[in-house]
């Protein structure tokens, strides 16, 4: 391990500017990637909270018996996708309808005739365990299944709103994923470039090590470590900047935008996720180094260098 750190310090000493520039670019790249993951994670949380209001109305056919209603309700309550399936009879539905319409049409408050036009229904709420990305799909599946039931007249779940909501989640997720892939590819390129420069600067050392019998991995190990270390350290620095930025935004949400009540729903990475983030950053560095090293030494670097010369 001492050999690896000596190698790292030598790299830093020989091309300090390049290593520091690489670290800055990497930190910025991992910061943007981390931000996207954090935004995605919190958007998912907020949308899931909003999504809790997602429910479907399953209107029952005229003449459906209470046994049939109970059977359907029982089946729905056993379904893992469903949080709640509440029966709403005509009277309850009418009261609700009249309350909603009171300010627009006060005459409706006393109109008992409406009762025969309002169907009985089951109000079905989607389980919180269903992620926001899947809610649309689950709603459509469930609506399709319930539409086949002989006792069901129709199913309504605010299709337009759900579609919009779902497409926002899907678009943000997809765009975020692509951006992360692009940023990580760019970060990999930057690390690979830095390691290549380190290799070029140490061509003589690689030749000499080969000539005294160093194995392939003995020569490559320090470069892989250099890539991993640069990646992991940049990931850690990006995490610190991200934490500071998150705290600033939280303070803003607690102060100026307190009415949105968002601050207590937002969460930073937990210890495990933060550790995973640093490790993943290190892995990007490791893989980028491995890419640079793929043709580094096959045992004959010195003779090849001689031929090039």
């Amino acid at each position, binding site marked *: 391990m001492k050999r690896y750190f000596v190698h790292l310090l030598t790299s830093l000493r020989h091309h300090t500017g390049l290593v520091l520039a690489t670290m800055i670019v990497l930190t910025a790249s991992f910061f943007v990637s981390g931000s996207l993951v954090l935004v995605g994670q919190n958007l998912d949380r907020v949308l899931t909270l909003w999504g809790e209001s997602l429910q479907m109305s399953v209107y029952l056919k005229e003449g459906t018996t209470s046994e049939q209603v109970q059977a359907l309700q029982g089946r729905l309550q056993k379904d893992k996708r469903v949080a709640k399936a509440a029966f709403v009879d005509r009277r309850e539905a009418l009261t609700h309808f009249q309350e909603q319409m009171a300010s627009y049409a006060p005459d409706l408050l006393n109109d008992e005739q409406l009762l025969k036009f309002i169907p009985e229904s089951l109000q079905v709420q989607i389980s919180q365990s269903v992620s926001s990305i899947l809610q649309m799909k689950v709603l459509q599946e469930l609506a399709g299944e319930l539409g086949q039931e002989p006792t069901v007249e129709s199913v309504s779940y605010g299709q337009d709103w759900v579609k919009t909501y779902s497409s926002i989640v899907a678009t943000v997720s997809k765009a975020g994923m692509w951006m992360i892939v692009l940023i990580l590819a760019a970060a990999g390129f930057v690390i690979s470039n830095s390691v290549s420069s380190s290799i070029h600067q140490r061509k003589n050392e690689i*030749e*000499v090590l080969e*000539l005294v*019998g*160093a*194995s392939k991995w003995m020569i490559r190990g320090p470069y892989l470590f250099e890539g991993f270390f640069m990646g992991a350290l940049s990931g850690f620095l990006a995490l610190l900047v991200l934490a500071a930025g998150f705290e600033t935004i939280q303070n803003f949400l607690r102060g100026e935008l307190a009415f949105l009540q968002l601050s207590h729903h937002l969460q930073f990475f937990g210890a495990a996720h933060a550790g995973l983030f640093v490790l993943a950053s290190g892995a990007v560095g490791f893989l980028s180094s491995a890419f640079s090293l793929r043709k580094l030494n096959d045992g004959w670097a010195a*003779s090849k260098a001689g031929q090039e010369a």
Partner: protein
Amino acid sequence: MIEFSHLYKTYPGPIHALKNIDLSIDKGEFVFLTGPSGAGKTTLFKMLSAYDRPTSGQIQVAGFDLASLNQTSVAQFRRRVGVVFQDFKLLKDRTVFDNVALPLVVRGDRPSHIQNRVEDILDQVGLLAKADQLPDFISGGEQQRTAIARALVHQPGVLIADEPTGNLDPRLSEEIMDLLERVCAQGTTVFVATHDHSMVKARKHRTIELLHGQVVAGARP
């Protein structure tokens, strides 16, 4: 111990650097390789030290077929031979001690063994006092002795040296040749490429002479 059979080395051009070399060197033998510039001494040295590969033919050294070494076996072979390069091939950012210790480090020896062994060989080549110096801060002769110490530190079965006394004054040259003879006396095969005819004459060892890439004298003991 060392066996060359129908060995050819051709560089792009084509330049026929070595042509049909047939040689046999016994275990524990001390051999000089001489010849004018461009005769192929350095090419033969490179073939023998597995620095480069032949175009055709065979070289057997210490049980290794150097013409067909793969990545793993070339490293194993190099751990069993000691090589002194004409341009020394020292690492400029490591001390004399660290340069000499390299063959033991790559072999994975214990630090205490490395310490003792390196100090011992540095003492033999008269460089113990310079152990902590960087190569750029010692003389050419001292760099050459560092390279010799590195080639001997792991007690190789074969020592191959290209002009090992080229940068040394006569007194130091004699000391180094005495050291190589002592190493040979302990059972190591020593192969020295040199221009120094007076040294070759004085030492009375088998001498192989190359001319235009071919052996013209000393092919057999």
